[in-house]
C-alpha cells in the first residue's frame, strides 16, 4: 500500500479522488487537505509517500507547496489539475505524473503503475523545485506571506517556528530545515537561523562559542557545532 495524501481546495474534487484512489486498492489515504498550509503540516507529520496535488489553490499554489518541503521528506508528486496547458510541461519535470480532472479511472491505473515502477516507497523524491520566495505565516485571521530577505532570524521553541522581522514575530508551519535549505538563512544554533544580511557583529566567546548581534540590537547564540558553518558563510 502506498501512503497517499490528497491536496485540493475543492471538497468535491477531494472526495471524488479519494473514492477513485481507494478503488485501486493500491493506496492508504493518510489525509485530505484543502490547502497548502494544512498539507505542509500533514506532510511534515505523517510523511506520505505520494501526494496528489492540485495546482490552483488559495494563497499558495501546488508548486509553492513543493518549495516549502524539506528535501529529505519530499514525497512523490502527482499533479491533478483541471486545465492548464502552459503548466503541463512543468509537471513532467517536477512530478512523477499528472492527472486531468475529471479523473479517468483507467488513466489512474497507469499512474499507479508508474508509482510502483519508480518505487514509491523510496523517499525522498528528487524534483526541481522553485526557490522559496514567500514564507507563509499564520496570523490572526489571514495568512501572511513574508519575504525571506526581510527575516532577521528564526527561532524554534516548543510552540513552533517563529520568524522575527522588523514588523514583528510570525509563526510558520515550515521547518527550520526547510527554511535552511530553501532560503539564504544560515543555521547558527540548533534552534536558530540567522539572516547573514542582518548581522551587525559576531562576538567570539570562550570555548568556541560566539554571540551574534543583529542590526536591530538583538543577540543570538552561536553553538560550537554551527560555528564552522558560519565561518564558511563569511569566508573567515
Amino acid at each position, binding site marked *: 500500500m502506498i501512503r497517499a495524501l490528497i491536496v485540493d481546495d*475543492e471538497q*468535491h474534487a477531494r472526495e*471524488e479522488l479519494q473514492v477513485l484512489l481507494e478503488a485501486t486498492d493500491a493506496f492508504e489515504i493518510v489525509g485530505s487537505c484543502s490547502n497548502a498550509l494544512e498539507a505542509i503540516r500533514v506532510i511534515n507529520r505523517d510523511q506520505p509517500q505520494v501526494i496528489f496535488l492540485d495546482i490552483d489553490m488559495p494563497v499558495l499554489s501546488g508548486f509553492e507547496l513543493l518549495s516549502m518541503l524539506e528535501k529529505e521528506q519530499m514525497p512523490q508528486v502527482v499533479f491533478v489539475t483541471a486545465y492548464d496547458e502552459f503548466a503541463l510541461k512543468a509537471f513532467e519535470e517536477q512530478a512523477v505524473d499528472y492527472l486531468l*480532472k*475529471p479523473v479517468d479511472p483507467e488513466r489512474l491505473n497507469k499512474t499507479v503503475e508508474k508509482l510502483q515502477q519508480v518505487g514509491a516507497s523510496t523517499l525522498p523524491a528528487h524534483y526541481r523545485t522553485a526557490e522559496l520566495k514567500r514564507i507563509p505565516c499564520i496570523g490572526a485571521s489571514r495568512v501572511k506571506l513574508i519575504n525571506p530577505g526581510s527575516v532577521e532570524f528564526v527561532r524554534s521553541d516548543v510552540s513552533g517556528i517563529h520568524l522575527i522581522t522588523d514588523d514583528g514575530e510570525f509563526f510558520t508551519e515550515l521547518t527550520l530545515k526547510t527554511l535552511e535549505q530553501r532560503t539564504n538563512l544560515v543555521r547558527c544554533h540548533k534552534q536558530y537561523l540567522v539572516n547573514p544580511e542582518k548581522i551587525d557583529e559576531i562576538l567570539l566567546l570562550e570555548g568556541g562559542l560566539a554571540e551574534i548581534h543583529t542590526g536591530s540590537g538583538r543577540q543570538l547564540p552561536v553553538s560550537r557545532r554551527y560555528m564552522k558553518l558560519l565561518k564558511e558563510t563569511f569566508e573567515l
Partner: protein
Amino acid sequence: MKLVFDLLQQMSIFLVIAYLFTKSPAFKPLTSEHLRGRHKLILYLIFSTFSILGTYFGLPIQDAIANTRAIGPVLAGLIGGPVLGVATGLTGGLHRYFLGGFTAFSCGVSTTAEGLIGGLVHLYLMRRGRADQIYLPIVALGTTFYAEAMQMGIILLLAKPFDQALALVKNIALPMTLANSAGAALFISIIRDQRSMYDRFGAHFSARALKVADRTLGILSKGFNPQSARELVDIIRKETGVGAVAITDRNKILAFAGLGDDHHLPGAPITSEHARQAISGNQVYYADGVNTPFTCARATDCPLGSALVVPLRVEQEVIGTIILFEPKNKLFLNLNRTLGEGLANLLSDQLLRSRYAEQKNLLTQSELKLVQAQVNPHFLFNALNTIIAVVRKDSDRARDLLLHLSNFFRKNLKRSGDLASLEDELDHVQSYLKIEKARFEDRLQVVTRIDSDLLSLKLPTFTLQPIIENAIKHGISQLLEGGQVTISAQRIGNRAEISIEDNAGTYCDKLAGEGLGMNIVDKRIRNLFGADFGVEVTCIPEQATRVVVRVPLTERPS
C-alpha cells in the same frame, strides 16, 4: 451757378465709376479691417486714377481747371493713412503740374497737401480709437471741405499774378468746394454700404453653413444608409433652399428630396452621366444650367435644370455623392455651390470618423470573443469534475447542475446581440453562479440585491459575467476561508449602478495591470452610451474589490 451744375454733373460720372469700382474684385481689400502692403498699392493705383480722371473731367476756366481731383487724395489719405494720401496727392498733383497753366505749381502742391490732410484725419481717428468713423460720410465731407479751402489759400499764396488768382478763386472756390465735398461724402457712403453688405452677406452665409453643419452632425454616426441619407437631404434642402437634394452611394440613389421626387426614387440606380463621372473621377462636377445644362435621364418633363455633384470620400475613396439641383427657371447660386462643396467635405469627415468608430467597435467585439474563449475550458472541466463527484452523492442535484451548465453554454453561444436586459444578464450569471457555488460550497456566498424596476435595463451582453467570474476566480477562490460576492443594482439619479463586490481584495495588481477584461467591458459601454458611463474599479488590498458598472436608465442616449 452753371459751374456748380457742371461740376456736379462731372461728379456724377465720377460716382458711377466709383460704384462700378465697388462691384469689382479690386474693391475686396477695402472689405477687410486691416490693409496690407499689396492692398495699399492697389488703393494707391485706384485713387491716383480717380485723381487724374478728376483733372481730365475738369472744366477749363480762366487758364485754370475747375475739377474734382481732390476726392482721390483725400479719400486715399482718409482710408489708407498719410503715406497713401501723400503718394496719391503727389501723383495727381504732378499730373496736374505737367498740364501747365498759371496755377499748375500751386495746384500740384495743394493736391499733395490735400492727401496729407486726409491722412492726418485718419491718424487722428485711429489714435482716438474711432476707426469706425473713417467711413462716415460726414467726416469725408468735412475733411474735403477743409482740404478744398486750403487749396484755395495755396492758390492765392503761390499762383502769380495774384489778382488773376484772386479772380479765379472767387469764381471756383464755392463750386469746387461744394462739389468735391459732396462727391467725397457720396463716394465714401457707397464704399461703406458695400462693405456692410459684404459683412451681412458673409455673416448670413456663415450662419447658414454652421446651421447645416450643426444639424447634420452625428447623423452619419448611425452609418451611411438610406435612413441617415434621408435625414441629411431633408436638412440640407431646408437650410440651403435649393430645388432638390440627393445623396447616392456608388451605384444608387439613397435619398432624394425636392422637385422631381416623383421620378428620382431612392434605391434607383444612378443614371446621370455627371454623377457617374464625379464618382469615377473623384471630382466635383458642376452643370450650371447655362453653359452646361443638366438633363434628367429619367423624365423629359423633369423640372431640374442645373446640378452640382460633389463626391463623398473616405480616405480618398469615393463612397457616394451629394447632389444639389436647381430647377430650369432658377440660377444656381455660387453661394450654394460653395456651400455644397463645403458640406460634402464635412460629411466626408463625419463618415471617416464613424467608420473609425465602427472599426474600433469591431475590434472590441473580437477582443471580447477572445476573452470568452480563454475563460471557458478551465471553468468547464472544473464544473464537470464537480458534477461527477456530486453524481455519487446526490444525482438530483447533479442533474440540476448539468441543466445549469447547458443553460450557461447555450446562452454563451446564442447571445450575439449588442444589448441585453439586466434580467437576461442575471439569468446567464445565475447559471454560472450555481455551478461555482457547487464547486466551492461553503467557501462561496452570493448575495444579490436587485431593484426589480431595473430588470428591463439595457446593457451590453457579457457585461456582468466576466466581472463576476473575476470576483470568484481571482477573489473568493483565493481565500482559505472563502468569502462573499455581493451583486447589487440600484438607480442613482438618471443612471443605474450595478455593483459587484467581493471581500477578498486579492487581485488589485492584476486589475491595474492587464485589466482582466474590465477594459473591454468599459470600452463597450462607453462606445454605446458615451463617456459619462462605464466601469469603475476600486480595490483595497486584502479587503475588497468593487466593480461598478454605470449605464443610462434609458436604452440609448438621444
